[in-house]
């Protein structure tokens, strides 16, 4: 539902705002927009403007910057170190570490918890972030760090989350990761990936919102092929020089 491309500083005309079915629902401003009272909304990022009349929300889709943790995002984290109660993980380089409690794995007890070495990968969900703790009642922690979990908080099932064994990780842009993880594309964005890869190949994959894709297609050659196809699709989508030159198959 992209209607127009915005540049930083552009004001949004009232006609572009979503027409909410329920007039009592307040308008939600997403990333890239700021509100100047009383009625002016300006963009501070460049990108296409998206609106959602059901949620009465409006945001700018921007494919850049660093990943900022947000509760219930699926991410691929790297274990940095192990502590008595939890693992310290990194979501993206040069950002503060996050916590993954030892007991937030499926059927983990103090004796049966998975032992993960530094450098291992886990597919996890963001349970809480420092700014969100006062909003979500479910998380009782008041830690100043972002917390991860590998189980569904209510069912205690893994739902595909947990340590990732073997395979290879590829870096993609944040916008592409969001697109792959769109709602209705199943767990881990596999349907989204398949749209870009084409049929006829079996592989396991997990898409992290922090701009990482984990792929395991059995053999080295197939994994490289699938991974590079994903990276190439990202390059084509961006349409700039990222998709040119050395990205081609040889």
């Amino acid at each position, binding site marked *: 539902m992209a209607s127009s491309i915005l540049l930083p500083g552009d004001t949004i005309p009232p006609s572009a705002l979503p027409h909410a079915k329920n007039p009592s629902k307040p308008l939600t401003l997403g990333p890239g927009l700021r509100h100047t009272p009383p009625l002016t909304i300006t963009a501070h990022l460049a990108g296409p403007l998206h609106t959602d009349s059901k949620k009465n929300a409006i945001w700018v889709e921007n494919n850049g910057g660093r990943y900022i943790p947000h509760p219930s995002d699926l991410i691929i984290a*790297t274990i940095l170190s192990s502590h008595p109660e939890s693992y310290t993980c990194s979501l993206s380089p040069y950002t503060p570490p996050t916590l993954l409690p030892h007991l937030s794995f499926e059927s983990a007890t103090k004796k049966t918890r998975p032992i993960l070495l530094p450098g291992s*990968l886990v597919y996890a969900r963001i349970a809480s972030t420092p700014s969100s703790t006062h909003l979500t009642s479910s998380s009782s922690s008041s830690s100043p760090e972002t917390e991860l979990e590998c189980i569904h908080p209510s069912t205690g099932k893994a739902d595909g989350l947990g340590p*990732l064994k073997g395979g290879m990780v590829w870096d993609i842009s944040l916008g592409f990761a969001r697109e792959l993880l769109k709602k209705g594309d199943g767990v881990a964005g596999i349907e989204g990936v398949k749209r870009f890869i084409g049929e006829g190949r079996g592989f396991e994959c997990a898409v992290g919102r922090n701009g990482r894709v984990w792929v395991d297609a059995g053999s080295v050659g197939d994994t490289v092929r699938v991974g590079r196809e994903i990276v190439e699709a990202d390059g084509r989508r961006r349409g700039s020089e990222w998709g040119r030159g050395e990205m081609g198959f040889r």
Partner: protein
Amino acid sequence: MPREAEPSLNEREFIHQALREQTRIDGRALDAFRELRLQFGDERGVVDVRLGKTRVIARISAEVVAPYPDRKFDGIFTITTEFSPMASPAFEVGRYTSDEIILSRILEKAIRRSSAIDTESLCIIAGLKCFFIRADVHIIDHDGGLVDASCIAVMTALQHFRRPDVSVEGENVTIYSLREREPVPLSMLHHPLCITFSYYDSGEIVLVDANRLEEQTREGEVIIAMNMHGEVCQISKFGGTPVDALVLLNCTNVALKKVQTITKFIQRQLEEDMRKRDVGGLMAELSAENER
């Protein structure tokens, strides 16, 4: 303090496994360079080198100074490297990483101390006046292969640069501006280039032009500087596991082929740039006819 991104265990294992099966994660052959692109600035002596996603800009400038008192007959040539935080968050202004020190030392050894530039030709009046040629290397984007890319950048920029012409009459020196006299190219004795070899499994697998991820997972590197006639200017190996002498010998053979292709590529690009600048030749410049 920014922390450099360490590749995960999965990535390390996968890269090793793939290399044992003669596959690289970006689909290249083990002895293939990434795509090399050169772009010349409007000014002489400015070159923008892209090696895959690595990007380096070199710029040459000249000024007239007094020579060092112990080297009265030599001009001065220095290479300065600058790692911009734009290239990678691991680089900080004012804090020298080992990468930066290694890069500047290698360039120093490969280009300056192998006397690629004839410094004696930079002397104007012995002991009084000489040219000071300065090469500034700016790292704009870092995806591995910094040494190779920087060396290509400096060598190309030096060949692209033109210094102002001078004439000496007794003690009087005249330095002609660009309009008065055609500036002259620097006198080069040879054109050395650096080729970095990354090795895994203690020399069983040898790679050319590793990207950043491959650099982070390798066991060690060997940097060979060589000119297109096969004269080795330097071999450096900083740390890492020991390498067999025969592997090293093989590396020099591969390096020679790479240096020859890259040197030819640089020559072609320089000639093309010459043609672009020289529209219509001298006749067009001398003509007084106006465009109508």
